[in-house]
């Protein structure tokens, strides 16, 4: 589903990713771990298509297509979703309006029928309940005044509503209390399917107890330095990143 080959990326003139190779097949969950500043978020932004992240070498193919040729919203409509490490606050745009606009824009782009207000509302309610996202939150401006945990839950709500093909979760677990962590993990697990793939970026083994990965990668200084099974996360928890050459912060 996702094939990354020899990916080099510079940000602000500085090379951050220095030759990433990564293959993700449908149905798999990959975890990416690694020290602060190693380039995990950079990788996720490149997948989403953020400005200022310049690919100087290499390629990314998604479902057989050149992902780098697609613009940001085309990628989303094709099924790429990034749960942001730091979700942005958007004053004046209610979460409800935002969700409806996004869902219908994607449906339109895929040639599907748009949902009317009634069907949309029903769907949002259905998806919000298990994530403990209240009606009140939905009526407020997107992420404005949400607590750290609420922001992360709202990201997962967006994901369950948009039902992406490839979901990248960038530290969706950070800032969550243990109950919220379980709720979020359940939300993610509910989306797991043979047609979907997920990339879970995290610093903590704990999340991976709930979202059990098929493959774990260690990213350090812009390179994938080790790849293993779910036990690799346990090892890292014990020994840290020292042997991979910890990054300067």
């Amino acid at each position, binding site marked *: 589903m996702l094939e990354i080959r020899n990916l080099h990326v510079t940000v602000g003139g500085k090379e951050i990713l220095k030759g990433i190779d990564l293959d993700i097949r449908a149905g798999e969950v990959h975890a990416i771990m690694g020290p602060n500043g190693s380039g995990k978020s950079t990788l996720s932004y490149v997948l989403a*298509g953020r*400005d200022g992240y310049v690919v100087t070498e290499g390629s990314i193919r998604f479902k057989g297509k050149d992902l780098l040729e697609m613009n*940001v919203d085309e990628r*989303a409509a094709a099924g790429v979703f990034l749960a*942001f490490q730091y979700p942005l606050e958007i004053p004046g745009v209610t979460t409800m309006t935002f969700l409806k*606009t996004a869902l219908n*824009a994607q449906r339109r782009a895929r040639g599907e029928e748009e949902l009317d207000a009634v069907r949309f509302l029903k769907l949002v309610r259905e998806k919000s309940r298990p994530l403990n996202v209240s009606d009140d939150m939905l009526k407020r401006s997107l992420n404005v005044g949400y607590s750290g945990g609420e922001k992360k839950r709202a990201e997962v709500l967006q994901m369950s509503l*948009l039902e992406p093909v490839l979901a990248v979760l960038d530290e969706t677990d950070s800032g969550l209390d243990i109950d919220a962590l379980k709720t979020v993990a359940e939300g993610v697990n509910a989306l797991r399917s043979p047609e979907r793939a997920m990339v879970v970026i995290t610093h903590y083994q704990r999340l991976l107890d709930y979202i059990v990965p098929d493959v774990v990668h260690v990213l350090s200084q812009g390179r994938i330095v080790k790849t293993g099974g779910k036990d690799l996360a346990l090892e890292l928890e014990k020994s840290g990143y020292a042997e991979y050459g910890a990054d300067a912060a």
Partner: protein
Amino acid sequence: MSEKATQHFIEVYEETRAALPGAGGWLARRREAAIGSFREAGLPHRRMEEWKYTDLRRTFEKASFGPAPVHEGAVVLPERRSASAFAAIDRHVLVFVNGRYRDDLSRAGHLPKGVELHALDDVLHEQWAKDLVERRFDDARQAENIVDLNTALMSDGACLRIRKGVKLDKPLHLLFVAQDAGASHTRNLVLLENEAEATIFETHIGEVASFVDVVTDIVIGDGARLNHVKLQDEAPDAVHLATMRARLAAEAKLSSFTLTLGCGVSRGQSFVLFSGEGAEASIDGAYALRNRQHADQFCVIDHAVPACTSHTLFKGVLDGESEGVFQGKVIVRPHAQKSDGRQMTHALLLSRDAAMNAKPELEIYADDVQCAHGSTVGELSKEAVFYLRSRGIPEAEARRLLVLAFLEEALDLAPHNQAKDALKLLVSEWFGEAAP
């Protein structure tokens, strides 16, 4: 001999004065005096502080406007949505074509007792009309002087007087259509006696090279309340000049909101004078400009007595090579303690070639007051656009959502719910329009 553009209007006056309303009476004398002052001051230009960003003299050097013809035939409302923005609201409608009242197109149903609604010609013999026309504010003379041009040439207008304690049953909609090219000079007079209430909508539309010069003189009595929603959307080669002068007695309330979709050059001037304690004025607006449009908001609030509250918020978006201007002044007189005055203006530049000039000022001579002013100019947040797009919202729609969100705070101040929704819809559709 004054310069050419000024001279042009003086000649128009000399040619048309005999046919203007009020010939032979006090107004004729008032017109004489006004044209004299206009000749002396000349058309305002950018070397005057209060016209620094809007040089009317240059505007009229580049494009000259003869008097708009009296249009008696059928009227084709412009296609633009602004023409029917308030159509779904139950209201009285007065239609003015090329600045002249058209009875056949108007629909002012049965009015409550105590509501007097007339065209200008019919109230000139009344003392209150004379008082309103003759009154000056003198808080910003360079800006107010241009009213002399209107006084000299005014040909028609809506005159509303509401007797003590009477409420106008539904909004009164003044619809001004510029049907043919040329200048029109309109004078509206509004007198709300104590405890009276009214809501006025005012729409200016046109697709011709018009110069619309409209002055609205307002007196709001003790405890009376006036809501005003104005929408201006005229042609790229049109000039719009509007001056509102309002005096508020004790506990009176004025809420005035203007949505400016603009024209070539537009300037909206608001003068508010508090003459009784405990009054409140909210003079707000939103604007959305594109291409080479220029829109100027000029707003002076005079806290001449204690314990009044004023609020001014203008928010706008500027695309293309458009230019926005806000000049404002809150004056608090020495004995006007407990005044509360706020004046804010915020603009979003949607293009590199758009520009905003903002100059809010405070002139405070009392010590026990709460006053604040501020202005910001920014751009759409790239991060926010990216966030929305990353969820599949196309760029144009993402920008539209964010701009609406930005303008919403101002639009929410429009003092009539249905009108507010109509304005929001217009702004939302503004994005869908292909640039002409």
